[in-house]
């Protein structure tokens, strides 16, 4: 009997291929976005792990200096006392297309089973050592490095974004004396003195680079994940609609099967088998689509991560079986969630229940009340998350709760609005139109919820991005005060340049900095000269009195907003700085786009405290940067590529910014199109069932054409109402993103700016989507043979 039952059940899809397509489509889309985002995240995480593995010599602890670099003599003293450590030179070199991280290692002492030990092991000593020694890079990175005045050898197995070279070659390329770290090998000899006795200035640092990188990039990946989840939720609305409809329409089949003796358990089992095979089919399609999405988005994501965090994610997607399986699992889980209600109803259906598919779409006050209660629950969850303030995850709970509450409350609110509007109706046709619209609401509500979510996300994220862009460009204009930025390599060049510029009466702003740990996290420490331009160009978020005078007198430091928020610092607080001294926080400035903490102190203080600080960069104030640039090339022989003018720097910063949000934009559009599809599907399915409602109106003399027009208007009206309701939801979302998520994720708070013109476009777009979606069903109605409408009256119902 089972094959016969299966044939009976499946025949539904044969008669309604479009419904079948809808189901598969919705599920595949949901799976695709979800697994695409997962693939990107997994790829990024893999890159971080590989990079960390390479950087720390296989996750080994490292010795670092409390201040500056480790002297060669210290390293030798350690080796000669029986400490097996291996020196590492770690820095950046400028390539033709961006910076590349360069690791210089000692193949003689590097841990032999680590990535670095095997990549630049003794077998490549021949061509990596000595003045002609090669730099080893991954082919993708070789492309970025471009023409380096060194032999560049491509090694496919190397971590992208990292260049490996022999210690001496790397020191030479970076012009560095001393080592950044010493890797502590795992097998230490039997007899050793205390580390403290040999090198009191060093401290052990556990290998945590991967964690550093994932902590920095966490917020970005969480954003992607949230988008993936949102799309998945929207996709599930579609699936839920399609499955629910299919169950309702098959009630006569179920009834007949039950009457023929099939147990409800058996029917449910067969339905589960059916749904499971759909889930696997759609899941497989979704995974392929997800792969496509991921590979299309990955270059942008990679550029963002590199620009924003210096994290390198390059190369191609490598998908693990786990990823494939999780894609299928999420598709199955989603199908299960979307069809649970339908299956329970089938299981409980009495054998002689009347076949009334219309019931599915009937106004159900109980359901609506249930949804409202659920909405309140979600709202409280969101508020609780806001009150407790549990970091980034708390922020997303707030976000999710708020969105779900709004979506669930939508049908009730729409019903209320429609009820209110119906009071203005004149004449019987108008009265029927409003009543009928309200009656259709439950059938359309899932699609409208999806639309609301997509629109709100669009408005919210759009507002956030625009606010960010607004603030960022303004801030960039203010902060980039120098007209020309010059970088020199040696002390002689540096004093030559300063003399040259002083002779010509130009103001020079040294951009000298060092790096070190501030409160246990990496930070940059800059020195500034006493120049009025800072006071006029640095926007301070909070300040103590006479902040600039005191800064220049060496009495304190300015810190960036990220550091202030992370450590809860405000003007007046004590701040410990590398080198074992501390100073007072004088003010906090905004520093967008920088994942690191930053400290600004007076230049003489920087030079005095950190003699190893990088002193090669200068900003110059000039009216004619182009001419000065040419003169510096001609008269001082400074290579042109060591200079950047303000415009180029701005353009570069904006480019990084735009790329950062290119991914967000793409996901936004995808989500919106999924929602549009949901409306189309809902309208199409409804139109087929609405004949019993329409036939009497037609019989009373309203033409099919008029009816079709009313259908069209109804779709537009509902979309417009949803859009209007989506506006406050979107602004609320933007507020959460700007004041909760951004602060947690990036450490800066942005002022919100509203862009109503964008909303007009979005409103028009959603009207167009709804209009397009209802065009087909309306046309179908207009061309429906009158015989179909007459038959309604002859039908058993």
């Amino acid at each position: 009997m089972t094959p016969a039952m299966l044939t009976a059940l499946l025949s539904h899809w044969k008669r309604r291929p479009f419904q079948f397509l809808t189901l598969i489509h919705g599920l595949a889309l949901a799976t695709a976005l979800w697994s695409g985002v997962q693939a990107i995240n997994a790829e990024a995480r893999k890159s971080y792990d590989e990079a960390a593995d390479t950087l720390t010599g296989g996750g080994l602890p490292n010795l670092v200096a409390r201040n500056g670099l480790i002297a060669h003599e210290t390293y030798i003293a350690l080796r000669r006392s029986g400490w097996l450590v291996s020196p590492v030179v770690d820095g950046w070199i400028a390539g033709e297309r961006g910076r590349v991280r360069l690791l210089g290692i000692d193949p003689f002492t590097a841990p032999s089973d680590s990535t670095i030990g095997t990549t630049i092991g003794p077998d490549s000593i021949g061509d990596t050592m000595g003045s002609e020694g090669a730099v080893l890079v991954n082919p993708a990175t070789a492309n970025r490095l471009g023409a380096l005045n060194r032999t560049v050898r491509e090694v496919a197995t190397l971590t992208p974004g990292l260049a490996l070279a022999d210690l001496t070659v790397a020191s030479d390329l970076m012009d560095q004396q001393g080592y950044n770290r010493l890797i502590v090998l795992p097998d230490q000899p039997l007899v050793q003195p205390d580390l403290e006795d040999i090198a009191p200035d060093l401290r052990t640092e556990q290998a945590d680079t991967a964690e550093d990188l994932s902590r920095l990039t966490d917020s970005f990946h969480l954003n992607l994940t949230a988008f993936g989840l949102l799309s998945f939720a929207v996709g599930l609305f579609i699936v839920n609609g399609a499955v629910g409809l299919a169950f309702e329409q098959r009630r006569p089949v179920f009834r007949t099967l039950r009457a023929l003796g099939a147990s409800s358990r058996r029917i449910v089992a067969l339905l589960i088998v059916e749904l499971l095979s759909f889930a696997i089919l759609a899941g497989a399609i979704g995974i392929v689509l997800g792969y496509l999405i991921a590979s299309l988005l990955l270059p942008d994501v990679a550029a963002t991560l590199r620009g924003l965090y210096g994290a390198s994610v390059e190369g191609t997607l490598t998908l693990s079986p786990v990823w494939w399986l999780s894609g299928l699992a999420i598709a199955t889980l989603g199908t299960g969630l979307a069809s649970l209600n339908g299956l329970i109803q089938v299981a409980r259906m009495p054998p002689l229940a009347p076949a009334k598919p219309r019931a599915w779409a009937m106004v159900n006050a109980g359901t609506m009340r249930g949804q409202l209660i659920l909405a309140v629950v979600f709202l409280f969850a969101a508020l609780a998350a806001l009150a407790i303030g549990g970091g980034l995850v708390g922020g997303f709970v707030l976000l999710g709760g708020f969105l779900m509450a709004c979506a669930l409350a939508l049908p009730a609110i729409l019903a209320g609005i429609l009820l209110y509007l119906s009071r203005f109706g004149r004449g019987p046709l108008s009265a029927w139109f409003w009543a009928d619209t309200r009656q259709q609401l439950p059938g359309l509500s899932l699609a409208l919820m999806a639309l609301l979510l997509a629109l709100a996300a669009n408005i919210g994220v759009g507002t956030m991005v625009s606010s960010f862009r607004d603030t960022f460009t303004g801030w960039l204009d203010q902060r980039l005060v120098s007209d020309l930025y010059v970088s020199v390599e040696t002390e002689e060049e540096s004093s030559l340049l300063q003399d040259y510029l002083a002779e010509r009466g130009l103001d020079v702003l040294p951009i000298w900095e060092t790096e070190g740990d501030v409160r246990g996290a990496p930070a940059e420490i800059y020195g500034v000269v006493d120049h009025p331009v800072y006071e006029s160009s640095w926007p301070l978020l909070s300040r103590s009195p006479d902040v600039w005078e005191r800064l220049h007198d060496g009495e304190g430091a300015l810190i960036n907003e990220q550091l202030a928020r992370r450590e809860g610092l405000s003007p007046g607080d004590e701040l410990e700085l590398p080198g074992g001294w501390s100073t007072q926080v004088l003010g906090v400035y905004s520093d967008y786009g920088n994942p690191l903490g930053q400290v600004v102190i007076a230049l003489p203080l920087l030079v005095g405290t950190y003699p190893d600080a990088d002193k090669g960069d200068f900003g110059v104030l000039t009216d004619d940067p182009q001419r000065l640039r040419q003169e510096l090339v001609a008269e001082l022989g400074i290579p042109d590529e060591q200079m950047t003018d303000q415009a180029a720097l701005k353009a570069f910063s904006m480019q990084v910014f735009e790329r950062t949000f290119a991914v967000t934009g793409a996901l936004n559009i995808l989500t919106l199109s999924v929602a549009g599809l949901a409306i189309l599907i809902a309208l199409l399915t409804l139109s087929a069932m609405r004949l019993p409602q329409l036939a009497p109106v037609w019989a009373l003399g309203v033409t099919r054409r008029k009816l079709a027009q009313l259908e069209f208007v109804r779709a537009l009206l509902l979309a417009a109402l949803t859009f209007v309701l989506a506006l406050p939801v979107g602004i609320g979302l933007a507020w959460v993103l700007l004041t909760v998520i951004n602060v947690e994720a990036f450490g800066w708070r942005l002022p919100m700016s509203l862009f109503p013109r964008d909303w007009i476009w979005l409103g028009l777009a959603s009207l167009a989507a709804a209009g397009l979606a209802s065009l087909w069903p309306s046309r179908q109605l207009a061309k429906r043979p009158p015989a179909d409408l007459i038959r309604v009256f002859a039908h058993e119902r």
Partner: protein
Amino acid sequence: MNVSVFRLAALIFLCASNALAQGFAGLGQTTDGFALPSPDTRFAFPADHGAHNEFRIEWWYVTANLEDEAGNPYGIQWTLFRNALEPHGAESDQAWMAHAAVSTPNGHRFAERFARGDSGQAGVSAEPFEAFIDEWQMIGPNLNDIRLTAQGSDFHYDLKLDADGPFILQGEQGFSVKSEAGQASHYYSQPFYQVSGTITLPERVVEVSGRAWLDREWSSQPLTETQTGWDWVSLHFESGAKLMGYRLRDADGSAYTVGTWIGEDQTSRALQPGDLTMTASAWSTVEGREVPTTWDIAFPEQELQISVSAIYPDSWMGTLVSYWEGPVRVNGSHPGIGYLEMSGY
């Protein structure tokens, strides 16, 4: 050690895939730019105890047969190799490798170290004598009076070595020929060390005493391409006489066997091919390999007919360049103790 003149170079052939060996021996098999051993060279000590950077390869090689107070035998090895990556003798072109081992009743333990030439991490000075890599040291006032230390994660030793006899020049005045084709090295030894000191193991500290043997050798030439490995012994007989002998195996099954006889009067005589025969008589399975750990050695001129057998057959050096090296017991016409090294198995 010894034959090993050619040890590293030979290993290039023996394990062509071995990364280190290739890197260490450097660029190709020619000796372009490097100094070549000459039969006319006469050693000048202590200068020649130091490094000869103009030659491609060189080592300072000590083995010692020791006993604890209960008479349990121990063996130790201390080796420092210098390899020039480029000719012309610059410090920055030198690469250093070192091996240390102890053979004990509870197993064989070893360690290895590497260093680049100009780092200060390894080096040799002739006077006062010091050879070192990291914390491992062979430090004198002079090469006849040295302190020897080395360690791994599971052993440490600290020994005092005092020589009561002269340096022995191997071959003809220290010019030691390695094949019919004429490859050669400069080679001398100090086989007359009396040793005392401690071996520290994770579980106990052992006071030991015994005899040690130093080999100094440098060259620029590799073995011939058909030579597949060698078997080398240094033996202290109870009579006070000593024997160094080695057997270079050829791919065709033949062998080139020579050595040096050191009489009770501490005078030496170079043995010609054919004077000495070395025949493997028993094999052990070590680290998955069949290694001949017992040898029958005959030197008819001295009516010598002995059996040399490994005290600890597990003395495998699982270093990047791997080989067997451990203490042996000598039975037969001339009883005694000594060291055996075998490569290419």
